[in-house]
């Protein structure tokens, strides 16, 4: 399955690069945050890395969010020479400022609309994880919006939205849905080749999972999934 999309000219806005990962506890969001920050540590063009993650309810079906923010070497990418490493210390992404949103669950993706703007590429897993209260139809609970509605909103606001059921894909290829996050990471790495070096990302993944992990195959699958 290959999706062809037009390549966009707009790349870096400012010299800070913001990644947001969002989903439900148990989907490996904290792990993805760690992988992306570790990558930032090793990539020579990235001068500084910060990030954060929500904690506390992550094991209990709650909403989870992680961020990774890169400060790109200003000598190469920025006209403004005055900002130094110290400039990037806030772990939170300001409103509208995410460059890439990796949404592992549709409801959680739309919940973080705050960070999505015309500069954002959204890669979204359309596999729904229904909150318990939605299944139970408790009176106070809102309805789970349709995927069509979510994609409509993202299309209006984001620069581009890549959406597919990564759980289904992961299950079809690897007989287990847990690789959906790494497949999604593969798509993201392909999308931003300026900042993501494939070889380096693979070596980071090898350090996290070991050299023969299925996660590496999952990454490769994601990388070759989308053609820009």
């Amino acid at each position, binding site marked *: 399955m290959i999706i062809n999309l037009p390549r966009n000219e707009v790349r870096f806005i400012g010299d800070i690069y913001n990644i947001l990962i969002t989903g439900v506890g148990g989907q490996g969001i904290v792990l993805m945050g760690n992988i992306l920050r570790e990558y930032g540590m090793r990539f020579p063009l990235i001068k500084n890395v910060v990030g954060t*993650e929500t904690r506390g309810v992550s094991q209990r079906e709650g909403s989870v969010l992680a961020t990774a923010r890169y400060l790109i070497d200003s000598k190469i990418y920025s006209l403004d020479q*005055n900002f130094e490493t110290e400039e990037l210390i806030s772990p*939170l992404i300001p409103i509208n400022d995410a460059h890439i949103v990796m949404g592992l669950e549709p409801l959680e993706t739309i919940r973080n*609309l705050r960070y999505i703007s015309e500069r954002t590429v959204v890669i979204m897993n359309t596999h729904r994880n229904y909150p318990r209260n939605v299944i139970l139809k408790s009176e106070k609970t809102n309805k789970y919006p349709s995927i069509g509605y979510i994609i409509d909103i993202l299309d209006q606001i984001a620069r581009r939205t890549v959406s597919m059921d990564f759980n289904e894909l992961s299950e079809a290829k690897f007989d287990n849905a847990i690789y959906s996050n790494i497949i999604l990471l593969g798509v993201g790495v392909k999308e931003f080749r300026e900042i993501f070096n494939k070889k380096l990302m693979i070596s980071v993944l090898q350090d996290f999972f070991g050299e023969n992990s299925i996660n590496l195959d999952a990454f490769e699958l994601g990388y070759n999934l989308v053609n820009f």
Partner: protein
Amino acid sequence: MKIAELFQDSPGKKVLISGNEAFARGIFESGVRFAANYPGTPLSEVGDYLNFLSKNSDGFTFDYSVNEKVALESCIGVSWTGLRSVAMFKHLGLNVAADPLHTFPYSGVDGGMLILCGGDPGILSSTNAQDNRLYSLHTKIPIIEPSTVQECKDFIREGLRLSELYKIPIYVHVTSRLCHSHGIVTLGKINMIENTGTFKKDPDRYINTLNRALSNQTKYFQIVGELAKNKKIFYLFNKVKEWGKKKEIEDISEVGIITSGLCYSYVIQACRKLEIKPPILKLGLIFPINRDEICTFANTYNLKKLLVVEELEPFIETVSKRTFCNYCDSKRDLEIHGKDFLPKIGELTTDIVIRFIMNHYNIEREHLIENIDQKEQILKEILPSLPIREPTFCAGCQYRPVFYSLKKAVEKLSEKKGYEFIYAGDIGCYTLSESYPYQMLDWVVCMGAGIGIANGMAQVVNEHQKLIAFIGDSTLLHTGLQPLINAIKNNTEMTIIIFNNYWTSMTGQQEHAGTPRSLIEVQDSASKREKKEINIIALLENIGLEKENLIVSRAYNIEQLEKVFLNTLPRPGTKVIVINEECALEKKRRQKLYEDQDADLQKEQVYYTILDSCIKCNECIEYLGCPAINIEILEKGENLSDDNIIPKNYKYFINESSCMPNICPGVCKTVCKDNMIKKTLINPNDNKSSKE
């Protein structure tokens, strides 16, 4: 980062770690002899790292104290022998430790001593947002606040030095955002730990009674006053931001900013977005404030306006206002703004800071604000219509069958006898009983306040209102015993359910005084004293509780539990039901560890599946509510919305990856009236499966 790597001896190495890891590393590098903690978000992990360090090193001791007061007092004891100590807990813990906190600074410290406290302005995982900096208005304890992950590590070292220089304790203020944020840190050298200290008797100093306390107070206030005047210390912790390589500060608008902690990063980000370079004073030492240097800052840049950016209470703002009104030499008008615009509630964000600065800065950046306004309008329309995700007990949790059978018993009793049950909540996993489908919780205030508040209420409520108080083992030992004893003393009309799961589970399964020693994997090294466990049952048997009013039960037998509740709840007097069952999550983690170590240990595998013939009576979903049971939509399609989630469009299934079949004995199978849940056994040796 792996925990062992955190304590490697590799000075100069750059690593990517979290704020909490940086605190642990800082404590390790600084030659701290003793640290004590009661677990609490945001600082729980620091204790976990230090517990690991304590078990793997000879010189350093870490203690999970029974509560924060004991933790603080232990650290005072260590410090009085001349060794370094760090007490740490969440902001609410300081209330418990407030008693010694107000007195011991009069005597001062010998070895450096820090009180590391994690605040929670956004109430992300607490019951209130109190601003602990205000404590220093009467304790006079100096406050330092790091603003980056690197400073989290460095301020531990500098704080201990400062503490030893002035012989007073130092308070380290930090918020949950910084504890959980990640950044690059350069590791430092490791200082050796002195193993034993000596207490030098000095009655005048350590016995704070009457005239001695008064004279010690005088000395202590003098010391803090001296610290406030020390220019070197001021510039060690506080920095004036130098913009760029040219070190130019554009002060055309005559607006300066004072800030501290993580707010500094929001200010920097806001200035970048607004493309302005105002003079910024970043405070690392926020109490006491050096009046002269604050005035110097305002005078150097010829400020007309001073903006103070801080979360929660106007602490720095108040101190600054006082300084400029009363002490500043120059009598010019300096406007100070802060909480007249910034909210006192919640965390700050870059966006709020942008608006704040825009309000007072003479620049045209309306498009920025317009963008934010526009977006916030969209968010206002969309976000309130989204369903929230309520946290619930983990899949396989031992509390679920307890609340399931309690609910059944309560429904029967209410119907038969017309009782209305009131649920006294406390702090711990059992707080989640408030969520769907149980909804059995009437209040949560603080540690121990479940039984505490019930103590009074039970004495005055109508006869048909019956009180049930929930409390966990760790909370019971923390501050629950006193209200329990009070209830037994008065033979107050209530049922107390003690959830004895052997760990402090909500904060990440830390050990506590009641944790059976046999469950703790790594025992302390031989050189240290063997620890004892406190047997909660034996304790209860011996504090005046009548025998028939103390019932001990396991968790997973629903029928038996319901009987226990039906029998116990209507009886008069104080009844205690202890549910003895280990935290399922911790048990699973340990089981997996043993299996990984020894392949032969792999037992037969168990699976639970829901048959296709399931008639969706909803007992498992609506009453049990295990998150391992979920729905699978049969009809696919992009336009499928919640309206289409009707029984004919989905089926129930048990999520194999979250189900805990080796721990939970199939509670869902027990509650399924139509026997639609099947248990499958696979023996690894013969690969044959048998069904039940």
